[in-house]
């Protein structure tokens, strides 16, 4: 399924770029992310707990950041697996300055298979979009926290995030 859209971060483009590559920020913003641990440059192991409606499931997987073109774009690649099924996704995030803010456009594709696919396209599509909205909503909050205290974290990812 295709995912596409854009959102606005209240940061200048360089700060937005830093935010979008801060593992601690990403771990806090990804819905259900329980841990995001580095395994190499721009590579992480991720554990995610999905809780949508009465569905609960743990997913483990990898997140990779590719084709970095600071501060304009990068590709985010993720894959995960759990008892409920598997998911693979890749997408381009493109940043462009807009007055004091930065517009982030995302354009990608997500594939979901296994048991969870039996809920049908309607529910998967809704759920994927909801998780993306929550992710960007959380990023906006992180961005606002940065504007108030502009001290980016060390870039060292945190271990466990709740």
């Amino acid at each position, binding site marked *: 399924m295709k995912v596409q*859209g854009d959102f606005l971060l209240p940061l200048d483009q360089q700060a937005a770029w830093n935010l979008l590559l801060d593992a601690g920020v990403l771990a806090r913003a990804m819905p259900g992310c329980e841990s995001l641990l580095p395994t190499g440059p721009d590579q992480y192991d991720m554990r995610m707990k999905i809780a*949508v*409606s*009465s*569905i*609960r*499931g743990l997913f483990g997987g990898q997140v990779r950041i590719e084709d970095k073109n600071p501060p304009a774009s990068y590709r985010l690649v993720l894959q995960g697996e759990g008892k*409920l099924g598997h998911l693979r996704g890749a997408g381009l995030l493109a940043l462009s300055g807009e007055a004091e803010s930065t517009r982030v456009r995302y354009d990608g594709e997500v594939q979901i298979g296994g*048991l*969870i696919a*039996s*809920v049908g*396209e*309607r*529910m998967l*599509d*809704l*759920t994927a*979009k*909801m998780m993306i*909205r*929550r992710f960007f909503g959380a990023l906006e909050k992180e961005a606002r926290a940065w504007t108030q205290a502009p001290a980016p974290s060390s870039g060292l990812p945190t271990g466990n995030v709740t």
Partner: protein
Amino acid sequence: MIAQPFDYSAPESVSEALALLGSRPDSRLLAGGQSLVPMMKLRLSTPAHLIDLTKIAELHYIVETNGSIRIGAMSTHRQIESSETLRQSCPLLAEAAGRIGDAQVRNMGTIGGSLSHADPAADYPAPLQALGAKVRLVSKGGERTLPIEEFLEDAFTTALTGAELLYEVIVPADPPGAGSAYLKLEQPASGFAVVGAAAQVAVQNGNFSLARLGLTGVGSKSYRARAVETALAGRPATPATIAEAAQQAAGGVEALSDIYAGADYRAHLARVCARRVLEAALARAK
């Protein structure tokens, strides 16, 4: 498939149910089971403990007091559809309940279960948004009452915390002379609304003195089409006013897209359903 093994409790009071809910993690409340049980049979949902609410007598009621109708969470769609109280004082909700699923689903499914599940294409949210309904949530520590707009946060996401139970839904009785209607274009296999629209209007001196419109199925959550309501308020109660106002039914909403209806078509359906349901409600207003 058969569901994974689970423990089962059937408390007879709300306080007992709340105590059970807090007593162990991975407990789920079971209302009519029309969404949860299929998920369990697919093994997508594997709660360790089910708390069945059907035996709790205090959650089964539909009563009118002081201009409001209070509907216990375990009222079935069939009970809401056939309630004399609702048919008299809030026919919109009864009409929408009658359009849910099929007779078997309506006999089992409950308003509390449906709202807690928060499917964005469910029927109830459209009339409840239009009516400005409220829901009362209870927990061991207390209770709170929320407008439906705040309760339904997102697709399959509500304001309920893990320790709360939806106790009742509160809808205002229709003002004198009001007319209402519910209309949906449904997915033929599931009966879910591709687009569902609920309207309530009243007319004074030839102008709209009341106009409310709720939509479901269009976006990732149901909503009140305030732009349409504003475009109707105080204006002549005519098909021309309605046709113009209905153009804004999907404004500012990111319409869903699936194999059955693309986003543009869904937005178009929202405008068409809005127009037709407003006309139907107007025809019923006195």
